[in-house]
């Protein structure tokens, strides 16, 4: 359940932003989670309120946008949407495809006052 420590990271980043950007309350936290990142959105949501409790982001709303995984095949140069790491190229059937998008998780935006 590394999502708990990821929520703690999110809080640290928000607290840093609160200092830099001078705000005292966070209304909304917008996250982008790649389909192939090692992060389970439901587990993030589960930990989020608990970790944010008593902080600048107390009772902030969590908005999660899932980003599709994209891959390309170095054999046939086909670009395609990939759902799992073990998916083969739908064009030529090879497994040694390269993932180009959907491995990351980031805070995209905050709504603050």
């Amino acid at each position: 359940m590394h999502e708990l420590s990821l929520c703690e990271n999110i809080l640290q980043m928000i607290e840093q932003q609160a200092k830099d950007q001078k705000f005292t309350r966070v209304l909304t936290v917008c996250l982008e989670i790649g389909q192939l990142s090692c992060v389970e959105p439901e587990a993030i949501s589960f930990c989020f309120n608990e970790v944010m409790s008593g902080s600048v982001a107390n009772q902030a709303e969590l908005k999660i946008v899932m980003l599709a995984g994209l891959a390309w095949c170095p054999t046939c140069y086909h670009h395609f949407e990939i759902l799992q790491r073990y998916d083969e190229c739908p064009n030529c059937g090879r497994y040694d495809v390269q993932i180009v998008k959907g491995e990351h998780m980031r805070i995209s935006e905050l709504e603050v006052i």
Partner: protein
Amino acid sequence: MCGICGCGERPLTAHTHDDHTPHDHHHDVEQPATVRRIKVEQDIFAKNNQYAQLNREYFRQNAIFALNFVSSPGSGKTSLLTSTITQLPADCAISVIEGDQQTTLDAEKIRATGVRALQINTGKGCHLDAHSIAHALQDQIPGPNSLVFIENVGNLVCPAAFDLGEAYKVVVLSVTEGEDKPLKYPDMFHAAELMILNKIDLLPYLDFDVEKCIDYARRINPRIKVLQLSVKTGQGMTEWLQWLTISQRLSSIA
């Protein structure tokens, strides 16, 4: 600025609102706060990755070859390490960082071989992170030209996401666990440079399909190298020690 009529705070002159009552201000109304949108666009792993990069730089400057051993609990990581340590030449400088939720049992097993070991107890944590390794390096201070073995918390999921600054992740999979583990836990096999199939002395008693397991691992990570060994019988240990020695030398050139 007045939140109702928009007049400036000073100079204040008597004025009226809808109720036509003249006044010089104050309204007993909470000033509506302005909602701001702030673009952050920061990776959640950025902090860990910064620490990992510092660790990696420390390893590079001191010609330290660090490996991060990952697996589910009970795959034989600690036995592999103790056996490796006793079979490496006596002049080979080694230090070990042990990660477990509780107990110092593994560090004690390593210390019994005569090698320095530091135990990190993660408590409720399910993985080691780069920051905890940075502290361990301060406590332990591995010498130049040495090997650092990091034994991560037994867990095939979470440690995959956390770069510790190691040269490579080595995933240990024992044949009692089933050949489908690379497909079930793809992130770990994707992140690893080497897969060690351990306990192969038990293969005659199991339905484990070695070829299928390797095929599954290469679907996830076509470049993954595979070694088959048994710590108990010593089969395959020579190849493992060769991989270790060669990889250490190559990393010192890179």
